């Protein structure tokens, strides 16, 4: 699940959570320039794919920006 | 498996006297006998005390609690400790119902538990309703604490047998026939075959439970004859978590076995008992849980009630057992204590099962206000809350011995409702 409201995602038990940057734009960031936003969205989807290939036992958060730095 | 007769002698009052005796519900505990039973190089002194229901007495730092029981002149009670394991025992087990012997004092891991014989905490401990012979003790100078523990345990078990011996020739108040569980393959007439798995803590010194005198650490789950448990085959040497501890007394009077027996032939078949260790690491837990589920299947259980001993670590095993059982197609119910914080709004279970169902034995963190008492046994100070043992105190249910009984002896549960009245307001 890609969402900004991570707490709710955890409460409802979503096993794999990727935090987005805004409620209105879970897979975007209008504060960035278009190329930067696109790049961020790529990293987001890559992170989502990483989450999908990771075994989890309970709601787990896979942050984008951690991975993004230097990745 | 064996059928057994529980020959019940009720105890309505107790006192110390020169000689041990039992007459018309009155138990006399002989002082000399008691001293001789606890004579040991590891013990410098013992001070026997009495605490009866309704008295303004608080027993602090209680250790093990044992019900006085005897096999009569043939002996054989507490195999592995007092009696050889393989000796054939008679069908009668004499019980002094309403009495208990217990030690109180310092041993490692003994978190400061308490039993209040009256007041708001009384309904939360089974031992507020027994006439208690309380053994305070002083370790001998330099005696290793494990030796102290052994001496105390030996003394308690012997005392339990000798007190019950005094009633053997009395006309019993009741005789309870305890049938053996039904073997697999016995026609059930459509009734479900329900068994119980009792997990035993196996964490080593002062946190161990003994089966035939030995720890189950490192072993797998095993089917076990409940008649053996009646005769003291399971003895507690585990002193942590007072509310989540199963003293020997509660194994002797195993509540889940009792409830299954009560309905045997009515709406269920009592299918058997499994004893199982609680390993302390992930690999062991998975292995033991998977095997236990297989064992229950092989034994022909349709459903299993699972009990534990301890807190979070034990909860882990409990959840894994339930999940393994349910995955194997057996219906499973576990007894858990909740840990939802003082206001009860935290998540109730930290390591709950994913499937199956859970009975609540109360909230570990719920606060209780206890009044001052006239006398305290076991010590003069409750170190964990830095208070005089006789003082008015506020404690969590976690501190009451047997307060969250994982074997299901208690009547406490949790209900989801807006906070209104605390435990003080409940009868």
């Amino acid at each position, binding site marked *: *699940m*890609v*969402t*900004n*409201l991570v*707490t709710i*995602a955890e*409460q409802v038990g979503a096993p794999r959570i990727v935090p987005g940057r805004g*409620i*209105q734009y*879970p*897979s*975007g960031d209008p504060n960035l320039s278009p190329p930067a936003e*696109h790049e961020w*969205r790529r990293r*987001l*989807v*890559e992170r989502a794919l*990483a989450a*999908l*290939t990771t075994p*989890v036992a309970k709601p787990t958060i896979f942050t984008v920006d951690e991975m993004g730095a230097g990745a | 498996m064996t059928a057994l007769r529980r020959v019940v002698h009720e105890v309505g009052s107790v006192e110390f006297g020169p000689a041990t005796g039992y007459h018309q519900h009155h138990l006399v505990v002989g002082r000399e006998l008691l001293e001789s039973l606890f004579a040991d190089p590891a013990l410098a002194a013992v001070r026997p005390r009495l605490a009866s229901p309704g008295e303004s007495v608080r027993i602090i730092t209680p250790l093990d609690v044992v019900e006085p029981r005897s096999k009569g002149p043939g002996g054989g009670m507490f195999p592995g400790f007092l009696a050889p394991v393989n000796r054939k025992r008679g069908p009668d087990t004499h019980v002094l119902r309403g009495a208990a012997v217990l030690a109180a004092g310092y041993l490692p891991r003994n978190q400061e538990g308490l039993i209040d014989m009256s007041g708001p905490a009384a*309904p*939360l401990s089974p031992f507020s309703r027994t006439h208690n012979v309380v053994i305070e003790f002083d370790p001998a100078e330099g005696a290793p604490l494990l030796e102290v523990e052994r001496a105390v345990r030996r003394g308690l078990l012997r005392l339990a047998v000798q007190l019950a011996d005094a009633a053997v020739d009395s006309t019993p108040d009741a005789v309870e026939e305890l049938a053996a569980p039904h073997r697999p393959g016995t026609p059930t007439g459509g009734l479900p075959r*329900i068994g119980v798995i009792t997990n035993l803590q196996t964490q080593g010194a002062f946190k161990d439970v003994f089966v035939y005198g030995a720890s189950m650490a490192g072993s797998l789950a095993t089917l076990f004859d409940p008649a053996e448990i009646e005769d003291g085959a399971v003895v507690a040497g585990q002193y942590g978590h007072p509310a989540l501890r199963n003293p020997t007394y509660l194994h002797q009077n195993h*509540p*889940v076995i*009792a*409830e299954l027996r009560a*309905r045997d032939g009515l709406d269920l078949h009592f299918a058997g008992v499994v004893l199982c260790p609680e390993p302390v690491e992930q690999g062991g837990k998975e292995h033991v849980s998977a095997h236990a589920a297989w064992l229950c299947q092989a034994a022909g259980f*349709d*459903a299993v*009630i699972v009990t534990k001993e301890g807190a979070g670590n034990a909860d882990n095993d409990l959840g894994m057992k339930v999940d393994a059982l349910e995955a194997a197609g057996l219906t499973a*119910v576990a007894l858990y204590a*909740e840990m939802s914080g003082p*206001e*009860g*709004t935290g*998540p*109730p279970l930290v390591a*709950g099962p*994913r499937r*199956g*169902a859970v*009975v*609540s*034995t*109360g909230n570990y963190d*719920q606060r209780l206000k206890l009044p001052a008492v006239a006398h305290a046994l076991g010590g003069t100070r409750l170190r964990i809350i830095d208070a005089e043992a006789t003082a008015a105190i506020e404690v969590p249910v976690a501190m009451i011995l047997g307060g969250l009984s994982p074997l*299901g002896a208690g*009547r*406490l*549960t*949790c*209900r*989801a*409702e*807006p*906070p209104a009245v605390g*435990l003080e307001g409940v009868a």
Partner: protein
Amino acid sequence: MRLVHYVNQFYAGLGGEDAAGLGPSVRDGAAGPGRLLQQLLGADHQIVATVVCGDDYAASDPAVSAELLGMARAAGAELLIAGPAFGSGRYGLVCARLVAAAQAAGLPAVASMHPDNPGIGEAGAAPVVAAGAVARQMRPTLERLAAAVAKLATGAPLTAEDGRVGATARIGRLVQDRAAKRAVELVLARLSGDRERTEVPIGGFDVVVPAAPVDKASAAAVALVTEGAVVPLGNPDRLESARATRWLRYPIEGVDSLASGTWESVAGGFATTHANADPNRLLPLDAARELEREGAIGHLHGEFFSTVGNGTTVATAKRFGVEWAAELRKAGVQAAILTAT
């Protein structure tokens, strides 16, 4: 008692979704629904100030609650009221956090929102009383809230009779039967088919058994799904903006990106301007397509599923989830990326 009322930007009259990004402010006296609330409270209690904040600003950072609480206290609050948030998730979340923070700081507080509000869980032990589902139910909602405030002001705890809802406490009770007996009864009930019954809810809100991970994303078929109500421009199939009763599916085979002007979001729960300017912000098709081309995704499923999460009941959402899983599995899809607003 001196009361301080918290409302969001909409109820303060500062604007709708366009003003959701506004920071906190405070004004004297009652505002918006606070006026009717004050009337209902009568002379005994006075709303001395109203704290306002935009939903997006407030909901996106838990630390904002401390700020709002500080403002309420500075305004002289002896009791804090938050809402009514009805079914609005962000507003409810902020109200819940605010009363939780107030309670923890020793300030009596009560929030008002619909029991299904997704934010309700964050109130913890702080009281929440039930509001209607929609603002049309303002009057009865405020009547209940006023009664709750009056009761709370006397120091009495709120109970179910006062309309109290939400994460209620699990309180210890001594009951007739010992736990061992209850365990036998429970196992018999479950054996006879009652698979719901349990004394302790298992897993809290919901237990989702995590699916086993996909072996390799580069070999997997992955679908994109959303509850952000992405639909073709004009919403030809009339997806609801709130309280969905259906979900829709649209082909994206050969489509590299969700173009603005071709697609839009009809979600009613938030301002859709950003999403409409670039619908990939709701469903990351452009990035996914690129990654598919590069081999990071084995195959991007040829259609996406869309519904609206806003105000949709848990039961309905669960049903949609089950249906989506079934459809995707039938189509050989192994994993899905769900965007949630």
